[in-house]
C-alpha cells in the first residue's frame, strides 16, 4: 500500500467543549473497538520501526498495534506492558507528538498513527477485564526503600517487587501517585485509573508508608542502617518557582501547585463537602504555557472563572505544553496573550490583586542557535484588570530529602547527580525522575525508575555475593 492511500487518522471522541468547561469529567472519551482496529490498520508494521526510537521506554509499538488490528486486545496488553508498566496513564499524558508519533513514518505524508490513543484503548480495555498480575520471582528476603510515590518511585517499586524484593515506599503526602494525583487534573487523568495502578502495586506486595517525609521523620542513612539494602530517591520537582516581581505575595496570587493540589488532591471542586477551599476569581491570569499552565487555566474555567488568560513571553510555537492540551484549552475558551510578560502585580487597599502590569515582546534576530528570542518593546507596558494570578513558571527540586544527606552530590540547581542507571555518589543510593532531570515527563520518570530497579538488583546481588565469599 502506498503512503498516500492511508486512511485519515481516527479522531478522538471528546466531550463537547461548552459542556466540559463546566465539569471535571474526562475530556477525551477514548476510541471504540472499531475505531481502534481501524486506526491500528494505518500502521505500516515497519521492519525498523522509527516510532520506537521516539519512545523513551521503547514500547513494542508495531507489535502491540498489530495485535489491536487483529482484535486480540489481551495479547496487545501483554506486549504493551512488557515495556510500560502504566500504559493507561502514558496513553493519556505522554507528549506523543514530540516522542513516538513524531517519528512515525506515516506522519511524513499524512498524520502519524495515533499510538498514544491506541495505548490508552488497550490499557482501558484490560482494566475493564480486571488486569492480571505479572509474574513474580520468588521472594529474596531483601528489603529496598523507595522514597516518593510518583511515577519514578512507583515504577521502580513495581519492578523490584517483581524481582522478589520486599519494597517499602515512603511518601510525604497522604496518598500515592505524586504529580499524577495532586497535579494533573481529573478531567485529563481520572484518579481512579491512578488508584487502580497503585492497587496493582499493593497486590505485588509493595508496602506504602504515607505521611512519611524523608528528611524529617526518617532519612536515607537511617534507612540504610535499618536493614534496607538500597534506597531509591524519586522525590520529584515539587518546589514552585515565582517570578520575583513586585506584588507576588498579594492575596489572590497562587502557585499552580497550590491551586491544582487544592482542587485535585484535596477535591476542592467538591467544597464544602470536602473541606479544603479553593478560590478562583472572575478574571484569571495564568503565567506560563506548559502542561501545568494549561491544567491550571482549564481548572480555573471549570471552577467558574469568567475569563482566563495564559500569559506567555514567547510565541505559540514555543509553548511547551502538549499540543492536545493547547488545543483543548483554545476550544474551551482560554485566551492566549503571547509575547507578553508581567512586570508587576498591583494590589488594592486590602492586599488583594486588582490588576497586572504587562509588557509586550517581539521576536528579535535569530541568535547563535537560530532561535529568535523575545525582546521587550520599549514603552509597551499596559495594565490588565485581573483578580487572580496563578504562577506556573516551573518548579525546582524539593530539598527536604537531599538536605538530610549532606554527602550526596547535587548539581548547581540542587538536582541529584546520577548516572544513566540512577547510581548516585553514595553506594546503595539511587535516584531518578524529576529530582535528577528537573521537571520532565511521566514516561521519562518511569524509564528512570525502571533502570534504577535493574541497577539496584545488580548492586544488591553483587553485595550479597561478596558477603557469601
Amino acid at each position: 500500500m502506498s503512503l498516500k492511500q492511508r486512511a485519515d487518522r481516527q479522531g478522538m471522541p471528546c466531550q463537547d467543549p461548552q459542556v466540559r468547561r463546566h465539569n471535571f469529567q474526562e475530556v477525551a472519551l477514548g476510541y471504540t473497538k472499531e475505531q481502534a482496529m481501524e486506526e491500528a490498520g494505518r500502521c505500516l508494521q515497519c521492519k525498523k520501526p522509527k516510532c520506537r526510537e521516539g519512545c523513551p521506554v521503547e514500547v513494542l509499538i508495531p507489535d502491540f498495534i498489530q495485535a489491536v488490528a487483529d482484535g486480540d486486545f489481551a495479547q496487545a496488553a501483554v506486549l504493551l506492558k512488557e515495556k510500560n508498566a502504566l500504559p493507561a496513564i502514558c496513553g493519556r499524558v505522554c507528549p506523543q507528538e514530540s516522542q513516538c508519533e513524531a517519528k512515525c513514518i506515516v506522519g511524513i505524508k499524512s498524520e502519524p498513527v495515533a499510538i498514544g490513543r491506541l495505548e490508552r484503548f488497550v490499557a482501558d480495555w484490560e482494566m475493564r477485564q480486571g488486569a492480571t498480575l505479572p509474574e513474580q520471582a520468588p521472594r529474596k528476603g531483601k528489603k529496598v526503600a523507595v522514597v516518593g510515590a510518583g511515577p519514578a518511585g512507583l515504577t521502580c517499586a513495581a519492578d523490584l517487587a517483581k524481582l522478589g524484593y520486599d519494597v517499602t515506599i515512603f511518601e510525604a503526602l497522604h496518598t500515592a501517585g505524586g504529580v499524577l494525583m495532586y497535579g494533573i487534573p481529573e478531567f485529563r487523568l481520572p484518579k481512579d485509573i491512578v488508584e487502580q495502578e497503585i492497587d496493582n502495586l499493593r497486590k505485588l506486595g509493595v508496602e506504602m508508608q504515607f505521611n512519611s517525609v524523608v528528611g524529617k521523620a526518617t532519612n536515607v542513612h537511617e534507612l540504610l542502617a535499618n536493614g534496607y539494602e538500597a534506597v531509591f530517591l524519586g522525590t520529584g520537582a515539587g518546589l514552585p518557582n515565582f517570578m520575583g516581581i513586585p506584588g507576588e505575595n498579594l492575596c489572590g496570587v497562587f502557585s499552580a501547585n497550590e491551586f491544582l493540589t487544592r482542587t485535585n488532591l484535596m477535591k476542592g471542586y467538591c467544597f464544602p463537602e470536602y473541606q479544603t477551599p479553593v478560590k478562583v476569581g472572575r478574571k484569571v491570569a495564568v503565567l506560563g504555557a506548559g502542561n501545568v499552565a494549561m491544567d491550571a487555566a482549564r481548572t480555573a474555567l471549570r471552577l467558574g472563572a469568567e475569563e482566563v488568560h495564559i500569559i506567555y513571553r514567547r510565541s505559540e510555537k514555543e509553548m511547551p505544553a502538549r499540543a492536545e492540551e493547547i488545543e483543548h484549552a483554545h476550544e474551551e475558551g482560554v485566551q492566549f496573550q503571547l509575547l507578553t510578560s508581567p512586570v508587576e502585580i498591583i494590589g488594592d487597599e486590602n492586599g488583594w490583586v486588582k490588576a497586572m502590569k504587562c509588557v509586550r515582546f517581539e521576536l528579535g534576530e535569530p541568535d547563535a542557535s537560530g532561535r529568535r528570542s523575545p525582546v521587550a518593546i520599549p514603552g509597551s507596558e499596559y495594565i490588565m484588570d485581573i483578580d487572580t494570578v496563578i504562577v506556573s513558571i516551573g518548579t525546582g527540586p524539593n530539598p527536604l530529602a537531599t538536605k538530610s544527606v549532606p554527602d550526596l552530590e547535587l548539581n548547581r540547581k540542587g538536582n541529584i547527580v546520577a548516572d544513566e542507571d540512577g547510581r548516585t555518589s553514595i553506594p546503595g543510593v539511587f535516584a531518578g525522575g524529576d529530582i535528577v532531570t528537573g521537571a520532565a515527563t511521566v514516561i521519562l520518570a518511569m524509564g528512570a525508575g525502571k533502570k534504577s530497579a535493574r541497577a539496584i538488583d545488580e548492586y544488591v546481588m553483587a553485595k550479597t555475593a561478596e558477603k557469601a565469599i
Partner: protein
Amino acid sequence: MYPIVRKEIFSPTVKLFDIKAPLVAAKAQAGQFFILRADEKGERIPLTIADFDREEGTITAIFQEMGAGTKRLGQLEVGDNILDVVGPLGVPSEIERFDGPVAIVGGGVGIAPIYPIAKALKAAGNEVFAIIGARNKELLFWEEKMASVSSKLIVCTDDGSYGRKGFVTDALKDVYEANSNLNHVWAIGPMPMMRAITNVTRPWGVKTIVSMNPLMMDGTGMCGACRVQVGNETKFACVDGPEFDGHMVDFDLAMKRLSIYKDEEKRALAALEHQHQGGGCGCH
C-alpha cells in the same frame, strides 16, 4: 490511623489531644509542628507539637476551634482515629545556652507551642522568664506546666479575671526593666500579639523570634501557600520556618494573607452546621 489516646477540654473552644504517632514522637523537637487530616473529606490542619512522649509514642496538640476543620476535630473522642498525621515538620527552635536570661511569651493557644521551647531552654541551662496571657481566665491553661519549666512565670488576662490585668507586652516591659541583659525573646500567639511584642523589643535591640502560622497545606514546600515576607525575601514557613526573626517579618501582609479564604471558611462552617440537610455535593 492515629488514635486519640487522651482528650482534655480546657474550655468550650480549647481542647487537647494526645495522639499516638510514634514516628513523629520519636523525632519531634521544640518549635516543630505536624499536619493532620481528620478524615477523608477533612482539610490538612497544621498544629504545633505542644509536647511529646517518645516512650509512649504520643504527641500532644492543643487547638482552638475556629472554623469547620477544628470544630469537627473537637467532636472526636478518645479511641477515635485521625486518618493522617504527618510530621515533625518545620525547623526546630535554635536552643542554646544564651548569655543572659531569655523571655518566652505565649498568648492564647500560643501557650501550647511555647511550652516545649521553654522546656528545652531551661534544660539547656538558661534563666527563663515566662509570660502567658489570654483574654480571660477560661482561655488559660498549663499554668503549672509552664511554671515547672520557667525560672519565673507571669500570668496575665486582658480582663483581669486572673493573674495580673493587662497585656503580655506590659509584662514583658517589666521583665526587661528588671533585666536589661535580656538576650532573646520568643513570642508565639495570634499575629497581632506577635507584632505588638516585636514593636516593644525593637528599640531594645533584643533578638525576637516569632512562630508564624500562615495558611498551610502540604507542609513540605510544595505549594507556597505559606509564603511570608521576611526582609526582602519570600520564605516558605513550613520548610524555612515556622520561626523567623520577628523584626524582619511583614506582619501586615501576613495578616492579610490569613484572610484569603475567609468567604469559603464561612461557607464551610455554615455547611457543617447544616450537615444533615441534603446529600453530597453532586459533582462526582
